[in-house]
């Protein structure tokens, strides 16, 4: 119950103001199609440089939480999911809005998001300290495999092609080796003077997430925003609260599935909403009403999306392994303040850790309150033409990456990686494993070298890295995730072929 002692930190004037800015800003950014939570958090990092670590994390955490929930606004009112996580919300949410029940859909969405989110953060609060103590038992070989696991799982589960997903992870790990070697001081892959200091994580993150989005908006050409914002009639909030609890089955399914999926590194919130929606439909006696503007659909999808947020940070805060791209960006935010997650965070910076976690808890409630008021305005912002949005994101990306070290080199790296990533994405490569490779690469290398040194002095490298219960378990998970994804890819290909034959 250590966390209770740090609640007052959240209510300090500056911290609370940042929490409000992050929450309201996140709701608006989340509602804007094309601005994913990961990109929003990456673009916000430069604004945290001059803040205390805890304050910076409050801003980033609030933005993460509320962008996920804000995506429901455009899903419901415009039928455009603000982020992929909100796809399931459009199914019933938008239908409710077309039936004149937009306010009810928004209220149900924010209330169930808040309930799911609070549950997810409570899970984070109770699991993290225990797991971070357990993480002390991890030696270099375990941490090496854990880093490989982080890249492999996200590379295999988060892409349409297992090989291209893994290859993206390899590209990220290679990019992380550019610069001077830490131990010998040797130059590695420095093919341009601007790269002598290596690739700074923050400009790389901004480039990899923001620039492909800018180019995607360019690719649409001179396209007018054709989605119309649906009018929202008044609806009593009390009725929405009663309806949410009346649909406790869907709420429980959504919250449980979201929290569980959040804990699995790499799976993330994109599928949490869809899986929860599907399961809620299967277990509901009113399953035929799903898709026709049924409240259970919105409740299950949105509670799952936000229940995923807290648990997705458990691997990051305990083992330094970001479980999702957004968690990877948050890790970047921690590292620039000289804070390394894991037991060090809870032993040496408990104020930072608990203030951040507590702010996410309070943020869920603020998100619910403000979400209902900001929704109408956010939906209008979501209609801002893509040309304006692309130019704004480009400007923020250039200024943000420059402000990291006042270096033009960072801006060049940001743009080069971003443009390269856009073209790679067009051919089936994915940004998430590349980013995780870039972030986990140094962790994997440091532990690999350290482990190799220990192994050379003791048992030899092969037994050191390939024996012991923990090593074998981690290797098994790495192999299992690859095998499972390959099997799923083959199965999907067979289904596609059958589908094509049936249509022929």
């Amino acid at each position: 119950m250590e966390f209770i002692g740090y609640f007052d930190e959240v209510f300090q004037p500056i911290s609370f103001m940042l929490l409000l800015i992050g929450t309201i800003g996140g709701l608006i950014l989340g509602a804007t199609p094309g601005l994913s939570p990961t990109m929003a958090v990456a673009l916000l990092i430069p604004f945290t440089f001059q803040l205390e670590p805890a304050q910076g994390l409050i801003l980033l955490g609030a933005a993460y939480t509320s962008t996920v929930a804000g995506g429901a606004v455009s899903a419901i009112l415009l039928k455009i999911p603000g982020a992929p996580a909100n796809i399931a919300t459009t199914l019933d949410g938008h239908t409710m809005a077309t039936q004149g029940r937009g306010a009810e859909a928004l209220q149900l969405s924010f209330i169930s998001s808040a309930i799911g989110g609070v549950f997810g953060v409570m899970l984070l609060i109770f699991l993290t300290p225990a797991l971070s103590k357990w993480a002390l038992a991890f030696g270099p070989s375990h941490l090496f495999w854990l880093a490989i696991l982080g890249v492999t799982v996200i590379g295999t589960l988060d892409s349409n092609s297992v090989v291209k997903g893994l290859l993206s992870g390899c590209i990220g790990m290679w990019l992380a080796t550019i610069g001077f070697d830490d131990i010998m001081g040797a130059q590695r892959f420095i093919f341009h003077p601007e790269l002598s200091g290596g690739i700074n994580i923050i400009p790389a993150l901004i480039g990899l997430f923001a620039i492909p989005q800018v180019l995607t908006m360019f690719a649409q050409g001179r396209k007018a925003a054709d989605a119309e914002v649906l009018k929202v009639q008044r609806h009593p909030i009390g009725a929405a609260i009663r309806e949410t609890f009346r649909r406790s089955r869907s709420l429980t399914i959504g919250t449980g599935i979201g929290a569980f999926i959040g804990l699995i590194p790499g799976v993330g919130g994109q599928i949490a909403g869809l899986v929860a929606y599907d399961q809620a439909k299967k277990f509901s006696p009113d399953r035929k009403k799903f898709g026709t503007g049924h409240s259970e659909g919105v409740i299950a999808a949105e509670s799952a999306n936000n229940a995923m947020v807290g648990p997705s940070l458990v691997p990051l805060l305990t083992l330094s392994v970001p479980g999702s791209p957004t968690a990877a960006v948050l890790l970047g935010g921690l590292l620039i303040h000289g804070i390394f997650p894991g037991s060090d965070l809870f032993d040496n910076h408990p104020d930072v850790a608990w203030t951040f976690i507590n702010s996410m808890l309070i943020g869920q409630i603020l998100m619910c309150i403000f979400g209902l008021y900001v929704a109408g305005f956010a939906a209008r912002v979501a209609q801002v033409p893509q040309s304006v949005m692309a130019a704004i994101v480009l400007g923020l990306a250039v200024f943000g990456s420059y402000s990291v070290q006042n270096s033009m080199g960072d801006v060049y790296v940001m743009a080069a990686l971003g443009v390269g990533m856009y073209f790679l994405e067009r051919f089936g490569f994915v940004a998430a494993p590349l980013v995780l490779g870039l972030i986990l690469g140094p962790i994997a290398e440091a532990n690999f070298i350290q482990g190799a040194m220990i192994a050379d002095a003791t048992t030899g490298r092969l037994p050191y890295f390939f024996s012991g219960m923990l090593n074998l378990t981690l290797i098994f998970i790495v192999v299992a995730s690859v095998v499972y994804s390959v099997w799923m890819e083959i199965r999907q290909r067979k289904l596609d072929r059958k589908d094509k034959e049936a249509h022929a």
Partner: protein
Amino acid sequence: MSRWQHIIPSGLVALTGIWICWVSYTQQPAQAFLFPRLISTVFVALALWTFAKALLGWSRAGDGISRRIIVNILPGLIVLLIYVFWAAKALGFYTASAIVFFILLSIYDPNPHSEVRSWIKRVIITVGFVVIMYGLFAQVLNVFTPKEALFQ
């Protein structure tokens, strides 16, 4: 999506992998390249596999690039590259941003080019954007950007 659209990028990635692998195994001191060797070996194996799949026509992932995408993207991409690699440093961040913002709006804004109102709107949005960026980065965050060409 044609087979060449898979062959060319996967071939480029495979070439990059081979170069990384060659550098990792030939550069000294060997200890400094221990981890790059491990990574580059896996990199090359996966890249060659991807390339072989592309050659055999088994690649499925990705939407490729159509002529329409190239036509739409090219003006914006050229502006982006000039902005980042020349204008931001040569003209100053705020001047370059204002020019680039206005050009991008002029190229991609769906509002008609024949209406004066659309142009006034574009100018107002551009000025608003630059003022907000200046307030945020120069005044609040104290970021020192390269010298401006048009003002101090």
